[in-house]
């Protein structure tokens, strides 16, 4: 017989023993909705790995990008230009050293598991994975990596990454363009495109000799990694995923309940973050649509159990890839739409302040920041699988090479020394019209729905209030 005291102790031990399981169970609301773990299906694999999911290289590039964005504002106006440039290049073009993770970094009670780049993946860089085509939205007829390097050099010479003489906000330009040139381009124009072909990285062979994942498993995982969603995204609302990226909701971020945020699986990055920002408005569902398509595709590949995919399985996979590509593109188009609206609003605000004789320097900085985001996203939109043709031409011409400046000039090109050339710009009224046209272009060509900062929304709301103009009333 156990004494009462012993009974209590036994219950206590039982509760204590079960608690971690209960907490883990709560954290994984539905593990079948998680992107991984998935079993090893490679035929003849003799290693000890039990989980075939692997996209740490992509997470490393997200972290390189986040860190590079932070460093882009490290310039002090010229004196530290060389050092600032070297530091940025270490994250952009790679480094032999085990560099520190500058962002995302721990803060207060929000502890991040990894602090050094090599703890994610060794030897990764952004430069060799950037869009190889010519970037028509930026002066100089440069390729993707050339544009990013050019911007890095310019950023190093500015104070805080902002060049008042051109209105360029480099952290925004670099970040928004790199997200497209690296993540979007690599995913939709490489992994979800030619690498889905039957004879390219087949599912019946390991990705590379000795690897514990098949060709198709890894191709699919790498594309998912570039999307930037946390592995447990489908258990979270769009708002929660947004808070994960903003480091504002530790409880939902820490999926395994270990008290640390694992960047490899518990963080929202890049376009997945932008998708969540639109989806939390309730009009769209980009984040879950894309993530679900990735998960469904991965389950399909896993179910093939290391055999080559049949034509019908591959057709299904291509259909998932199309859903992913289409929605991903729309997320970038929604962002372009939003920042065209912000630029419009900023110009109106500056016009108002100038008329009142007020100092516009802060608003101008805000305008430049928004313009940098607009430009970066619009350039990113052109790095996808399809040549946007006339849409790209219109987009680049409407936005121009630089924001319209307070002295009514604008960057129109670069000379042989890499210095910017400026010329007379459009009036602000006309430039605002260009922003409206950018928004209309995004509606017409990409069917954007969230339409954040819609500058004609008020007109539509008024038209609704006034009612149909088609009534045939004979007064």
């Amino acid at each position, binding site marked *: 017989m156990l004494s009462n005291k012993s009974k209590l102790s036994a219950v206590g031990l039982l509760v204590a023993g079960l608690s971690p399981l209960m907490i883990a169970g709560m954290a994984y609301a539905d593990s079948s909705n998680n992107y991984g773990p998935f079993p090893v299906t490679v035929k003849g694999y003799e290693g000890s790995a039990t989980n075939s999911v692997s996209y740490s290289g992509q997470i490393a590039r997200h972290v390189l990008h986040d860190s590079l964005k932070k460093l882009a504002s490290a310039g002090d106006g010229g004196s530290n230009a060389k050092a600032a440039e070297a530091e940025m290049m270490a994250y952009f073009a790679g480094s032999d050293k085990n560099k520190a993770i500058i962002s995302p970094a721990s803060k207060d009670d929000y502890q991040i598991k990894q602090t050094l780049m090599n703890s994610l993946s060794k030897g990764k860089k952004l430069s060799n994975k950037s869009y190889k085509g010519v970037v028509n939205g930026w002066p100089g007829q440069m390729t993707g990596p050339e544009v990013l390097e050019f911007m890095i050099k310019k950023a190093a010479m500015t104070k805080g990454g902002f060049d008042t003489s051109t209105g360029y906000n480099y952290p925004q330009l670099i970040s928004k363009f790199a997200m497209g040139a690296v993540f979007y381009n690599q995913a939709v124009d490489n992994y979800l495109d030619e690498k889905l072909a039957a004879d390219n990285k087949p599912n019946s062979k390991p990705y590379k000799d000795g690897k514990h994942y098949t060709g198709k498993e890894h191709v699919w995982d790498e594309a998912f990694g570039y999307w930037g969603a946390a592995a447990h995204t489908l258990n979270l609302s769009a708002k929660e995923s947004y808070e994960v990226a903003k480091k504002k909701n530790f409880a939902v971020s820490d999926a395994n309940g270990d008290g640390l945020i694992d960047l490899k699986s518990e963080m929202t990055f890049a376009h997945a973050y932008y998708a969540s920002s639109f989806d939390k408005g309730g009009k769209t569902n980009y984040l879950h649509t894309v993530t679900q398509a990735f998960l469904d595709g991965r389950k399909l590949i896993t179910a093939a159990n290391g055999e080559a995919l049949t034509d019908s399985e591959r057709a299904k996979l291509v259909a998932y890839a199309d859903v992913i590509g289409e929605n991903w593109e729309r997320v970038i188009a929604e962002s372009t739409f939003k920042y065209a609206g912000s630029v419009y609003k900023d110009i*109106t605000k500056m*016009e*108002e*302040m*100038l*008329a*009142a004789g007020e100092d516009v320097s802060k608003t101008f900085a805000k305008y430049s920041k928004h313009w940098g985001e607009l430009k970066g996203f619009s350039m990113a939109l052109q790095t996808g699988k399809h040549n946007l043709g006339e849409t790209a031409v219109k987009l680049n011409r409407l936005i121009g090479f630089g924001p319209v400046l307070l002295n009514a000039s604008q960057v129109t090109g670069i000379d042989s020394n890499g210095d910017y050339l400026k010329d007379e710009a459009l*009036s*602000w*009224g*006309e430039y*605002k*019209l260009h922003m*409206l*046209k950018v928004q*209309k272009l995004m509606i017409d060509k990409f069917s954007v729905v969230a339409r954040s900062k819609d500058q*004609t929304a*008020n*007109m*539509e709301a*008024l*038209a609704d*209030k*006034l*009612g*149909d*103009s*088609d*009534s*045939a*009333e*004979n*007064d």
Partner: protein
Amino acid sequence: MWFLDFFSNIFEHFSDPKKRIFLGYIFISIGIAFFWLILQKKLSLRQAFWKIFDKKVFFSKSSKSDYSVFIINRIFTLFISPLLLTQMAIATIIFHLLHKIDLFNVSVFLNFSKVWIVLQFTIFVFILDDITKYFVHRWMHKWPILWSLHKVHHSATKLTPLTIYRTHPLEGIVFSLRGAFTQGTSISIFVYLFGNSVDLITILGVNIIVFTFNIAGSNLRHSHIGIRYWNWLEYIFISPAQHQLHHSIAEAHHDKNFGASLALWDWLFGSLHHSTDIESLTLGVDGSENERSHSLHTLYIKPLGEIIFYSVEKLKILKISICQFGIRIQNKFYALVKQ
């Protein structure tokens, strides 16, 4: 399913406060009619009831054709409406144009108070709507081609609230374009000047001024209840009896009282006529009330025939004029050659 849209469109006309024949407005109009007949015309409640719900009016050939046209036109509306220029299309064009010409510094207008802007917009929309209705209506009477269409409305010999829909579909297109133009213009100019501060004061989702006119018995304009206003008020607002006079066949009443809500335009442009007792009026185009004048053929096809006939006649005149001009040139040429 187009027929579901069709039924919901009909239902909407009675349930949507933006529509003239919204049941709420109809009930209020009936109430006003009772007051008028009992207090002004000294009828008993029973007499007033039978006067208002006069079966000779509501079951007349004219009214029956109104009902048919209302139903048939809903089908036309379903198919024609999507093809028409919308107020948003016009608003967008004007909005873009305003940015392009960049005529004045918009920021000047951004400091006005929200209340002032909303009030101005509400009044502007109403005034622009009312004055354009006046002019379009006037042209409907003055231009032969348009009159061929508008005659369909005037062929009603009895007036009921549904007579406002006794409209040829082509005339409906003209009205729709007018509406799109006025709304598109108002919206674009105000949003350009005042940004997101622009709004409309509404009751039940309807412009407060339009709502006021509708609860003030606008449905009685097309009715057999001849409510008249004081003489001075009929210079400002059109009374139901003034509009009923507009439907009179008497020559003295032709081309009078084109206004929709305000009589000001008629007064300003010389087409105002004060009301008379409706009992003394004969309504319609030629006073006849035979089967044919209310037939669907007369209402839908005949106007098209008239327009074609009129156009052919005009072309003949043009051809003769061109021939005469040619002969004159030829004669002059011969005269020059002879010299």
